[in-house]
């Protein structure tokens, strides 16, 4: 008899989860690429065509006496002034899909005529692997989309350079491009601690959502109330330290460093309680 280790079993489950969302991920990447590149290319071509028309009119001695002027602009200027919404929509779609997928990743195991949850719960390995595999799948899903966006920005800058002649454009670098777009700035914070904090809060929120889902799946009707109450208590625990202790207020009771420590402790407690509670629900209370 072959024996697989707990780690191998977990990796196989994670691989299984990744395979299940791969086409959705590819679809979201395609939507992002098509909308962002499409809007960039059409905007630039429209501008060049309009410039060509203006010059043609001027050459034919029409309305204007002076040669139409072209004000050079950078990729950053274009994104900031004309493509903010076009570049935001695909990201918002991605965020919405991930938000829905956090619930779908669990509920699809129960719904439909072939309830896969039986098979998952009867796997001869710790049930917590199911929780961890689904959690890691969500994290990988998110980071794959972020990584794709990181690849897409230089590609879009390259296209900008290809389409626009040198004398018609101004230079701009990657970090300036990220800073100019509020959503990109949020996805890719410049400071490492901000990155860890933002994604850490995101991961803890996923844990809280998972535990709320498991509460509903364990206690059904009344479980919805338990789940909502649990999520609300966790949200309050994470938001209150910053809200009540007023980090920005110079007259606050505590120093900013101390408030941050309270906040980090609250986040750590919420994460540990969610993991522990999820573990207990999966092992003791879950119902197929």
């Amino acid at each position: 008899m072959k024996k697989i280790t707990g780690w191998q079993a977990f990796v196989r489950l994670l691989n299984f989860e990744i395979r299940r969302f791969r086409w959705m991920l590819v679809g979201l990447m395609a939507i992002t690429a098509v909308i962002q590149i499409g809007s960039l290319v059409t905007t630039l071509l429209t501008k060049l065509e309009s410039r060509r028309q203006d010059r043609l009119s001027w050459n034919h001695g029409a309305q204007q006496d002076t040669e139409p002027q072209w004000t050079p602009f950078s990729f950053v200027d274009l994104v900031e002034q004309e493509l903010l919404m076009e570049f935001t929509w695909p990201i918002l779609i991605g965020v919405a899909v991930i938000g829905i997928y956090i619930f779908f990743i669990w509920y699809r195991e129960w719904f439909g005529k072939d309830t896969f949850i039986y098979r998952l719960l009867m796997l001869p390995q710790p049930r917590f692997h199911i929780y961890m595999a689904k959690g890691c799948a969500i994290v990988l899903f998110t980071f794959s989309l972020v990584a794709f966006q990181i690849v897409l920005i230089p590609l879009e800058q390259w296209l900008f350079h290809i389409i626009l002649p040198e004398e018609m454009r101004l230079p701009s670098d990657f970090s300036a491009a990220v800073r100019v777009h509020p959503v990109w700035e949020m996805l890719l914070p410049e400071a490492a601690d901000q990155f860890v904090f933002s994604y850490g809060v995101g991961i803890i929120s996923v844990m809280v959502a998972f535990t709320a889902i498991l509460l509903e799946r364990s206690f059904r009707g009344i479980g919805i109330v338990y789940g909502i109450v649990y999520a609300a208590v966790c949200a309050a625990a994470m938001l209150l330290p910053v809200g009540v202790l007023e980090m920005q207020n110079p007259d606050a009771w505590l120093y900013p460093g101390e408030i941050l420590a309270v906040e980090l402790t609250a986040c750590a407690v919420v994460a540990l309680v969610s993991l522990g509670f999820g573990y207990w629900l999966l092992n003791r209370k879950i119902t197929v």
Partner: protein
Amino acid sequence: MIELIDVRKRYRLRQVLKGVSFTVRKGQITCLIGVNGSGKSTILKAIMRLVPIQEGQILIDGKGRSGADLYEKVAFIPDRLTMPPGMKLSDAIRFMQDYHRRWNEARSRELMAFFRLDASERIGNLSKGMAAKFNLVLGLAQETDYVLMDEPFAGIDMFSREQISKVFTSDLMEGRGVLLTTHEIGEMEPLLDRALFLRDGVIVRDIDCERLRDEMGKSVIDVMREVYAP
């Protein structure tokens, strides 16, 4: 031996199991009989720890078990095929093989051939009968000491039922303890060793089928009439 001791289970305000106690022995086919909604499936799920119980004990070979300790000893064949519909049969077998140490590949191939199942078919495309057969493959290819089956004949045609019945007399069941629930008693009666009658949340009769037939000249269906007739 699977041993249930005073198992109680409540769904919200409804007490489904009110102190169920019985045993399932290796080498025997035991049938759990009861009307719809009497808690037969709940008992099987409780043994597999798929639903929690409020009180009582469930012991497998003298121990309360969970995780690998339980799922490598007991296989459960639910009343539906529990694999994603988009999966091919070959992928589902691979999935089982990947996780179950006691998966017998040769046996799964043998069963696939016996039931004439096409491994390249998708689960979502299987007919009810084919799905029931594949469900048996997934359960019986595990070399476990006990097999639990929930309504293995539900909603399938006569020929498929005959084919599935043959499995019970084959060496696949040799030495295993089988606990099943079924409404198709006629089909299964000659194969049963014991029958447990569940009514109002408790086991009201526990009969040895051979003795019932030989000494009392009765069938399980006769006892069913006595127990459940209004």
